[in-house]
């Protein structure tokens, strides 16, 4: 390094030249008037100092150290005297700095030059010696800005600055800046120094390794090696390149060769041991580490051996090694961290914290130290301190994910999900592909989602889990998202998620079950049944199969396979969850089946189901109880028990339950009155209900209107009020002009009112669809036209149609006419009938 120290050229020369230039350029008159003031004592001393400095450098160049040191001291003395008289003289101070630096008296340089530099910022003649002094004093924070300033001026005289900066940047692990400085150095260095370029290439290789640029690093190391006997540093660099390229066996082979070839060189041993260690080959690592220590107890060797001891689960021995590191190099960061870790490995958390706190206080404020200190605090349960320390890490390295990851872990440990999520989010902002950040962000989101779901904030929970699932497309995450979507009744969304989940590696019966419920919720019962079936087939556990079966039952209900479903739900199996599903659904399913039976006109079956509901009970679900009451009331009406029906409806619908429409009361009462034959009050309620029809109601309301008109017409007809009957039938026909029954009945009214031929024509036309038309044609034939043969024929057709209620009556009529008039059955289809020929 001495070799590269630049000759301390006096900057005064420049200023002298400038003065000369100015005097030449100036106007002659001004020149004539210019009288340089007489030199002061201080100026003289300073000039003498300059001369002494020149002599000293010359002596040094000749290799006469003694002479050089003597001259430097002389120069220093002169500059000190001059500066004492003229403290503002930049040139004197610069000279003093050069002399003091040459004498390694960096403290003096720092003390004398700093005040003056503060007054003259940007003054390179001061920045150079001052920056150099700080650098030598390892006061990098002060040194680097000054040295950067000098480097930016790019003066060949200050070539060494580039080297200083490069070595600092290598130390600070900033590969890019190191490369810049090293390349600048190569450009600026005089030809006579080219012989040492291999060293610069070596450093360049290391810088490229920091940049993780393997090809550039390889090129640099190869240049360093070129034309020389095999060099350990260059070869070690190449081994590092191989390791970086993932060619670990080659790297290891190279190192194994190097440890033999260069048995006295430490680094190959260390690197090789580290390779063994990370491959889990602890015995070989130990062998190399012990060899390394034997070679010389360097900090690195003890650090390695300590790590080996840690790997051997001997934290106490590790601690001893690490403490040796610190004995050899007090304050060495790696050593301090290592001791901290060794203490923690012995569960001596407080000691570890204290140790690292002391290390931090003693000024070794490195990123890793702070990081370790924070984590040690976290593991010791001192979360507040951990967060505090890790915030420092973020401040120190805001462009790295490290600090945020550590903060995330602290907040994760205390369940502060909001902060943890924010931390990991920040980590991803600076390092978008950080795998740990993605993983733990997803997990923190899952934790928060669970808490949010617990307080019914389902939408927020779903949002968290969506984000988590985007980060971590795993089966458990998909299941969580699907579950929260199901709980918040977003069935279509849940279905999308679960359809994807069952295709993922590791999907289980549970994912199929959730898919089944999602499909069921979104109204696709067929697909739901398939999923439940698959769920049941995916497991052998009786409990899980029972859960799948319960789900299948719910799907079957929707598919109309209610009996099968009731069977399944009645025998839910061993699982508690399945029993709960059954319990929650069986009464509902039965009420629903009862309503379906009513629609099909089977009140007895409806009653049976409702009896079963009464036995099972509806638990705390008041709405379901009321629905059962409602169904029972409708059943009573179907059975003709109208008073019970009406009171049941009132009980079921006051106050109006959630399942009822606003007009359900009016409509159901209207229906009961209709069944009772109370046309006018029924119609009144229907009209009320029709003012605000609900979806799906208008068609049925129309049907009830028609039914009421028909009922009204029938009642009027029975009481002989043909006008009223006609009016009602015509109104009914206006709504449904194609209704054959209404047309037929209107013909009956016509017949009664004398329009017999029109009526007969209508009956004849309608006979294929309305059986009673044949009966009426018979009546017309016998009563009006006295044509017993025609009547018999018509009634025979009526009876052949299988018409029910009046068959016995009509058969008697027919038989009597046949007996009286000797009319046999034309087709012989009814030989059992009494005929004239027959004898008893």
């Amino acid at each position, binding site marked *: 390094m001495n070799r590269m120290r630049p000759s301390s050229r006096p900057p005064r020369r420049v200023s002298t030249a400038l003065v000369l230039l100015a005097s030449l350029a100036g106007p002659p008159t001004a020149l004539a008037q210019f009288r340089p003031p007489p030199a002061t004592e201080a100026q003289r001393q300073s000039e003498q100092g300059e001369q002494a400095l020149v002599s000293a450098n010359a002596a040094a160049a000749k290799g006469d150290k003694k002479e050089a040191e003597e001259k430097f001291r002389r120069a220093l003395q002169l500059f000190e005297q001059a500066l004492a008289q003229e403290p503002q003289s930049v040139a004197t101070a610069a000279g003093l700095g050069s002399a003091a630096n040459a004498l390694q008296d960096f403290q003096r340089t720092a003390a004398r030059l700093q005040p003056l530099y503060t007054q003259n910022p940007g003054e390179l003649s001061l920045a150079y010696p001052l920056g150099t002094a700080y650098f030598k004093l390892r006061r990098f924070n002060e040194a680097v800005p000054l040295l950067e300033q000098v480097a930016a001026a790019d003066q060949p005289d200050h070539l060494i600055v580039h080297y200083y900066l490069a070595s600092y940047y290598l130390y600070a692990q900033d590969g890019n800046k190191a490369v810049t400085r090293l390349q600048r150095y190569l450009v600026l260095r005089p030809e006579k120094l080219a012989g040492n370029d291999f060293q610069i290439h070596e450093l360049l290789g290391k810088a490229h390794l920091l940049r993780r640029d393997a090809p550039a690093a390889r090129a640099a190391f190869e240049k360093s090696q070129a034309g020389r006997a095999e060099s350990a540093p260059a070869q070690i660099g190449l081994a590092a390149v191989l390791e970086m390229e993932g060619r670990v066996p080659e790297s290891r082979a190279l190192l194994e060769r190097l440890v033999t070839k260069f048995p006295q060189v430490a680094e190959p041993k260390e690197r090789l041991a580290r390779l063994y260690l990370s491959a889990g080959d602890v015995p070989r690592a130990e062998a190399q580490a012990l060899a390394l220590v034997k070679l010389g107890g360097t900090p690195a060797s003890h650090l390695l051996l300590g790590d080996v001891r840690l790997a051997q689960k001997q934290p106490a021995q590790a601690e001893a090694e690490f403490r040796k590191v610190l004995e050899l190099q007090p304050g060495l960061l790696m050593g301090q961290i290592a001791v901290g870790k060794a203490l923690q490995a012995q569960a001596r958390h407080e000691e570890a914290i204290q140790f690292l706190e002391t290390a931090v206080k003693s000024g070794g404020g490195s990123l890793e130290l702070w990081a370790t200190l924070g984590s040690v605090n976290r593991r010791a349960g001192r979360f507040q301190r951990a967060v505090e320390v890790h915030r420092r890490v973020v401040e120190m390295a805001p462009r790295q994910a490290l600090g945020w990851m550590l903060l995330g872990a602290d907040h*994760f440990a205390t369940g502060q999900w909001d902060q943890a999520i924010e931390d990991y989010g920040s980590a991803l902002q600076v390092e978008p592909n950080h795998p740990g950040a993605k993983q733990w962000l997803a997990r923190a989101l899952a934790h928060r989602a669970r808490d949010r779901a617990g307080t019914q904030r389902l939408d927020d929970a779903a949002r968290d889990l969506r984000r988590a699932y985007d980060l971590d497309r795993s089966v458990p995450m998909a299941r969580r998202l699907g579950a929260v979507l199901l709980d918040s009744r977003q069935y279509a969304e849940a279905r999308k998620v679960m359809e994807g989940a069952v295709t993922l590696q590791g999907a289980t019966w*549970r994912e199929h079950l959730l898919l089944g419920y999602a499909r069921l919720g979104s109204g696709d019962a067929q697909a739901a049944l398939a999923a439940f079936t698959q769920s049941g087939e995916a497991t052998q556990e009786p409990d899980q199969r029972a859960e799948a079966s319960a789900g299948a039952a719910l799907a079957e209900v929707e598919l109309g396979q209610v009996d099968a479903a009731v069977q399944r739900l009645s025998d839910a199996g061993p699982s508690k969850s399945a029993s709960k599903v059954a319990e929650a659904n069986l009464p509902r399913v039965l009420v629903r089946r009862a309503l379906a039976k009513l629609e099909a006109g089977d009140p007895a079956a409806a009653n049976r189901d409702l009896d079963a509901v009464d036995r099972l009970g509806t638990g705390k679900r008041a709405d379901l109880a009321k629905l059962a009451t409602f169904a029972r009331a409708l059943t009573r009406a179907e059975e003709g028990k109208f008073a019970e029906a009406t009171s049941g409806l009132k009980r079921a619908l006051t106050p109006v339950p959630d*399942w009822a429409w606003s007009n359900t009361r009016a409509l159901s009462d209207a229906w009961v009155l209709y069944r009772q034959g109370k046309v006018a009050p029924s119609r009144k309620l229907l009209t009320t209900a029709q003012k605000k029809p609900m979806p799906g109601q208008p068609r049925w309301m129309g049907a009830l209107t028609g039914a009421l008109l028909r009922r009204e017409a029938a009642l009027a007809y029975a009481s002989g009020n043909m006008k009223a009957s006609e009016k009602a039938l015509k109104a009914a026909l206006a709504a449904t002009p194609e209704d054959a029954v209404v047309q037929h009945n209107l013909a009956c009214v016509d017949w009664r009112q004398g329009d017999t031929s029109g009526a007969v024509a209508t009956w004849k036309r309608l006979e294929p669809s309305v059986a*009673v038309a044949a009966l009426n044609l018979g009546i017309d034939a016998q009563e009006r036209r006295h044509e017993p043969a025609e009547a018999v024929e018509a009634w025979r057709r009526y009876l052949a149609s299988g018409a029910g209620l009046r068959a016995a009556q009509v058969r008697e009529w027919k038989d*009597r006419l046949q*007996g009286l008039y000797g009319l046999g059955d034309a087709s012989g289809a009814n030989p059992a009938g009494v005929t004239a020929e027959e004898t008893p």
Partner: protein
Amino acid sequence: MKKTPTFVARCGLALFAAVLFLVASPASAAPKKATLGVFLATTLSDGQERFQYAEALAQKLEASLGRPVAARSFGRYEDFSKAVGEGLIDFAVVDAWAAVQLGAKAEPVAYAPRAGETQQRWAIISTQKGSVKDLAGKRLAVVKGAGPADPKFVSHVVLGGDLDAQKHFKLVPVPNVESAVKMLEARGAEAALVPVAHAPKDLRVLFRSGKVPGAVLVELKGSGNSLSQSLSAVGAVAPFDAFTAIPGREFEDFRKLVTQGPPRRQPVLADAPDLRVETPVLVQSESLGPALPPFTDDLAVTSEQPDD
């Protein structure tokens, strides 16, 4: 239409009524002598049988009512009618259509069923082939049972209003079933109207009626309460079964049918099926949907912690 004479045996109801009789305790009656009349010109075809029945029934009634009961059997409508008119009869067992003619003064108390039947069919029998229609203008022997009501019974009840007996036939009154059959054999008539049970095997049945009430017990004096209460103890008297109550207004309907005839047939309205409820019209469908289980457990997370 529902008033047309279709009398279906209602054994169930009859049994029920019998039970009622058993429960009711008979009040002790005054020891005044009562007279039972039996006029069964068509239901029983044998005079001796009618006499024996009257005697046996009187005995039973006497025991049941706790007062003397005399029996009088009538072979001819004229005799029976006269006795009733003179107030000699307290209660009587008569053919239903004959009871109708007695009007309001005869209160029907119970049927006297035979072989479990309270009703019987009537037949128009003839020695010749053919149909009723072919007998237009021919003589029909009809048992004289109810005076002026006889032709109405034939037209309204037996012929169901589909044929006017007086216009179609020459009605020949005879005292009883035996004489009706004999009239036919003697060619005093071309046809005769008799209960199906009494139609001789060698004669042709040209027509069979619907079911018509048979013998009925009527009370001609008093409320009928005490009599009906005593009947349960009477039991069966051959050839009849035990008396059974007359269901509802069945006898009144029969009386109306006999006197007024069946109502004219009127066209019948076709019934549209009753409107049924439709669940979605009355119940919001979502509330009937499945109740899904909670899935909160699926949100569980591992206790794994990040570390560096």
